[in-house]
């Protein structure tokens, strides 16, 4: 006891002398603080900021599986030429580029042997014609036919001749200059402008372009995606997250404790069930031979795969799948807010003879304005960006009728079965979501302020 009385005395003097130094210490940066922040900062930098930056950069490229993520090569394909024709490449120029020359060299001889030409014939070609070169296939074939060992069939001659053909088409070059050199050799008459255009088009790697956004702005599918997203977010929010959540919270508020406990547990389950099991349960519930179709059959209603069988039922399923989780979130949040209402207000109203309905309308609902606004803002954000449940249930089907923006972005970039993942396009769609998400989160932080945000339960469970 004595020591604890004695201590403040010495502490008092110590504090008096230490105060100036302490203030100075607060003035400069805490090294320990930086050290303690560093690991978290590095992680956030790597997996939060860099992805945002990369999304921003790659949104302006045409990066895809076919361009590859690394550096590209230079190759002119027949497809390139066909596309260039729309951009002013003339027929003659295209022919000049795709023209082949025929020169007899080791590579050609090897190719001819591999193509199954007669060995004696090939030897003779090597012996008499090595080093020769021909512009035209017909000239070359005539020379070949004149050789003593030439086969009889024109087909064999033609295929032998083709083995010596060299075209600029379909040949991969590491650098632009290498391709340019070969192009000059094949088609020396091209004008510089045309030559550059062809070389630009030949690059297989990703290039910077604003095409993704032009495509998004012009294609009719964008409109449908936006409409789908609006319908999905709007319906889920109004019917389930706010509507059902508020209804449950208010009803349970008035119920006897066992009833409240039971239903609170039931409604907590969708939140804590892992998403895969939760979606399997919905599949069982709505799939053909599942619960609802069997029930419908027994009472004589149309029975089919409700999850994917028709547009209307697919929408209802998809909204319910997300909505039951959303209602659960709403219920937890609204219940907390209801308990915060001073109970004296309710007692007073009862003394004055208010009915339950009047109580709800005049006392409870007006005080629920902020929680409702919060649920709406917060859940708009998560509904806009979440697609896991949709992906695992309707998968955007039937057709693309239940595809929302986030799901489409995800599928474009990371998960489609056509084999060509369009990273650039997906990044462009994601960038729009990122911008909307950032704007919304900043706005709602400003509305709800720091303190407001953390004083209430705001966890998605």
């Amino acid at each position: 006891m004595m020591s604890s009385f004695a201590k403040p005395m010495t502490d008092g003097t110590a504090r008096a002398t230490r105060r100036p130094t302490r203030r100075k210490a607060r003035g400069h940066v805490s090294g320990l603080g930086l050290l303690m922040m560093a690991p978290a900062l590095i992680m956030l930098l790597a997996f939060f900021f860099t992805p945002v930056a990369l999304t921003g950069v790659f949104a302006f490229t045409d990066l895809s599986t076919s361009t590859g993520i690394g550096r590209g090569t230079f190759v002119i394909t027949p497809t390139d030429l066909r596309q260039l024709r729309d951009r002013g490449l003339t027929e003659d120029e295209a022919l000049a580029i795709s023209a082949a020359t025929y020169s007899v060299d080791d590579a050609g001889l090897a190719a001819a042997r591999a193509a199954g030409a007669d060995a004696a014939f090939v030897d003779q070609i090597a012996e008499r014609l090595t080093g020769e070169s021909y512009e035209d296939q017909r000239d070359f074939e005539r020379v070949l036919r004149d050789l003593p060992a030439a086969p009889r069939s024109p087909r064999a001659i033609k295929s032998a001749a083709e083995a010596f053909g060299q075209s600029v088409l379909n040949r991969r070059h590491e650098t632009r200059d290498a391709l340019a050199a070969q192009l000059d050799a094949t088609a020396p008459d091209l004008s510089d402008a045309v030559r550059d255009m062809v070389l630009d088009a030949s690059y297989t790697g990703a290039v910077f372009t604003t095409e993704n956004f032009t495509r998004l702005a012009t294609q009719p599918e964008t409109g449908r995606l936006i409409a789908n997203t609006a319908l999905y977010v709007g319906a889920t929010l109004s019917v389930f997250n706010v509507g059902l959540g508020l209804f449950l919270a208010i009803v349970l508020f008035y119920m006897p404790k066992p009833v409240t406990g039971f239903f609170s547990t039931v409604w907590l389950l969708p939140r804590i069930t892992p998403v895969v099991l939760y979606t399997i349960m919905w599949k069982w519930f709505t799939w053909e031979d599942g619960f609802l179709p069997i029930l419908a059959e027994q009472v004589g209603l149309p029975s089919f795969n409700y999850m994917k069988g028709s547009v209307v039922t697919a929408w209802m399923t998809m909204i319910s799948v997300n909505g039951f989780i959303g209602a659960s979130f709403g219920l937890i949040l609204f219940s907390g807010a209801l308990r915060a209402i001073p109970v004296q207000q309710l007692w007073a109203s009862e003394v004055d003879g208010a009915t339950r309905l009047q109580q709800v309308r005049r006392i409870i609902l007006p005080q629920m304005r902020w929680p409702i606004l919060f649920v709406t803002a917060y859940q708009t954000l998560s509904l806009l960006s979440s697609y896991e449940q949709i992906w695992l249930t309707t998968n955007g089907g039937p057709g693309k009728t239940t595809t929302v923006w986030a799901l489409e972005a995800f599928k474009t970039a990371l998960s489609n079965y056509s084999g060509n993942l369009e990273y650039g396009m997906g990044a462009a769609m994601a960038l729009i979501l990122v911008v909307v998400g950032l704007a919304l989160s900043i706005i709602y932080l400003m509305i709800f302020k720091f303190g407001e945000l953390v004083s209430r339960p705001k966890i998605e469970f």
Partner: protein
Amino acid sequence: MTRNFSTIPLILAITLVSLPLMVMYGFLILDTFTDAPPGELWPDRFTLEHWRFLFDTSVVGNVWAATGNSLILALSMMVIVLSLSTTAAYAISRLHLPYRRFFLAGIMVMHAFPAVTLLIGVFFVLNFTGLYNSMIGVILVKGALMLPFGIWIMKGFYDAVPWEIEMAGVQDGASRFTVWRRLILPQVKPGLVALGVFSFLDGWGEYLLPRILAPGSEMTVLSVFLNELIAADQLGYDFNLFKSVGVFYTLPVILLFVIFQNRLMNIFGGGTKG
């Protein structure tokens, strides 16, 4: 409260809206140990054969290996989230840092920001660093995406610790680090437990990241394992089997939730005063 209203119609109403959930979860449990004739709703016989997958790897593959992988994912992610957010939150809450307000605002925005939209960018990062298709990459990403939440929660707990405890320690000559480790950490233990359980559950239930960022990985986690079952089976679904695997997968979640319910509500409720 007085009862100047009738409870029965309201109970009926909430029962009605809760019916889908009650049916789904009721049959989830029921179906794991019964069988129903095709085209019927009600089971007519008791059986344990749906649980055969626990011992017989020929039924669905090795469920224990997947369980181990899920455990690794959830535990390592929990360790990352716990260690990084306890240190960073302390620095933000109590130590003098340049741009402290900026960090705070940034973490708040990140906390609110829907991280799923970053998945495409994360895919690039993993590709460039060579972590694509590895469980380490998934663990790092999952941990990082949960950090803003973790830091925010822990900051709330630190803020609630009285200054006097720290002052006492510092005046007794302890360094700030020792003070944090010996005096402050025990004070925020409820927060650590809640955040730990919470991040474990989050890692355990995660499906998207392992599926997308490590599709070719040898380490299949339970969520991916379970979904592959249902995706692989083209002919009629054996929902009872899926449900049994699903219940097996979800049991730890329920268990943890029942044990730690009050501590988890700490996060929901008063523990996070800003």
